[in-house]
């Protein structure tokens, strides 16, 4: 299908974008890469009055390391992050997850912050942000605010971002000494939406597991260093708490089984790659 008609404004700064957002009212939408928003427009699941294009805003296109995190601007593409020299060293979890994010062809234009903003429950980048306990910067004509990852995504395709606000950057905490990071997912084909996505962090004292694709948002749980049956029981309990849902790709039961089996595997992998 074709999108419903909308006005279009290409802006050159975040300030210009938030003014246009304020003037555009509730139906104004920001577009960066468009890899999530354009399908919504083509399906007419979104019918914005105006599209505000930030894809050419140079001041939002950056990857910057500071104070224990990597800050990624709202116009930065997934492929740019994948090519960033420090990725494997500073963000090993994101490095492991990025090859699963869409395809070569979609990462070339899709942005990191766009994926966060779209808030698909099975998306890899929001899951990584949740497990690493990162933050999202929002800006509007009323000012700026920062929201921690666990308060940002509020459900399926919904976030704490208010009308008139845009994401300007996301911050992913950098790898800590002594921790191991691992990511895996199950999908119909490589690059398709994850049926279940799993991200694990193992430290000397604890294990942390984040799950995408089962509940309506990435969900994170932390345990002491469990082994054997204790770990199996913890994973089983986690799987039941998440619930899961049936769709054309998998049943809720299958999703829970993936949490139990792949959960164990990804935790073991995180333990073995502890630095």
């Amino acid at each position: 299908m074709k999108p419903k008609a909308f006005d279009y404004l290409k802006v050159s700064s975040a300030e210009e974008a938030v003014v246009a957002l304020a003037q555009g009212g509730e139906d104004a939408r920001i577009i960066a890469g468009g890899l999530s928003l354009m399908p919504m427009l083509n399906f007419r699941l979104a019918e914005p009055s105006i599209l505000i294009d930030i894809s050419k805003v140079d001041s939002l296109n950056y990857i910057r390391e500071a104070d224990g995190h990597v800050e990624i601007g709202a116009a930065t593409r997934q492929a740019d992050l994948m090519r960033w020299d420090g990725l494997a060293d500073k963000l090993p979890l994101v490095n492991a997850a990025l090859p699963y994010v869409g395809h070569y062809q979609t990462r070339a234009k899709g942005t990191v912050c766009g994926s966060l903003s779209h808030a698909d429950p099975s998306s890899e980048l929001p899951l990584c942000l949740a497990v690493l306990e990162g933050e999202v910067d929002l800006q509007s004509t009323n000012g700026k605010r920062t929201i921690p990852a666990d308060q940002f995504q509020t459900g399926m395709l919904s976030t704490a971002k208010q009308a008139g606000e845009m994401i300007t950057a996301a911050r992913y905490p950098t790898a800590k000494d002594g921790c191991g990071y691992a990511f895996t997912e199950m999908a119909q084909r490589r690059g398709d939406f994850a049926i279940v996505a799993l991200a694990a962090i193992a430290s000397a004292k604890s294990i942390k597991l984040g799950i995408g694709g089962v509940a309506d948002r990435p969900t994170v749980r932390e345990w002491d260093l469990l082994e054997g049956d204790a770990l199996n029981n913890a994973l089983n309990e986690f799987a039941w708490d998440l619930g899961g849902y049936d769709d054309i790709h998998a049943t809720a039961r299958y999703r829970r089984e993936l949490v139990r089996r792949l959960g164990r595997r990804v935790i073991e992998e995180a333990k073995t790659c502890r630095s």
Partner: protein
Amino acid sequence: MSKLNKDARYPVTMTLNGEEVTGHAEPRMLLSDFLTHEIGITSCHVGCEHGVCGACTVIVDGTVMRGCLTLAVQADGTTVETAESLASKDGKLSELQLAFKKHHGLQCGYCTTGILMSLTAYLEENPKPTEEELRDMLSGHLCRCTGYVGIVKAVLDYCENSTE
């Protein structure tokens, strides 16, 4: 830049396969529709219109992208390459195209133009991919004729033996 009105049509000028072309587009017009209906090229195939099938894949300012997930007005002032750029002016196929022909890398051809454009960008970055890397990259395209076997053979042969 000033706001473009939803009901108006605006001139969109781009360098398409080395030649400057101009057409007109409403803000909502997709690049895939612009190239096909405004400019009149035939290689930007529309399959799914939500970025999944990859048939409309083109290269804009050196970046591979879905024509159906890009607006024509976003491509104003850019350099666009489509599959028409691959063969020489006298119709002689490129070595990559010849490899597809040799290894039966296509049957109906609908997905082929998009795959060729993806490969054009991808092989610049990674000129000697392994079969696994290549199959991972091809997962961004749907081909219902070949089972991908001929495509993979064609590309590996091209990477091994190309003189370009």
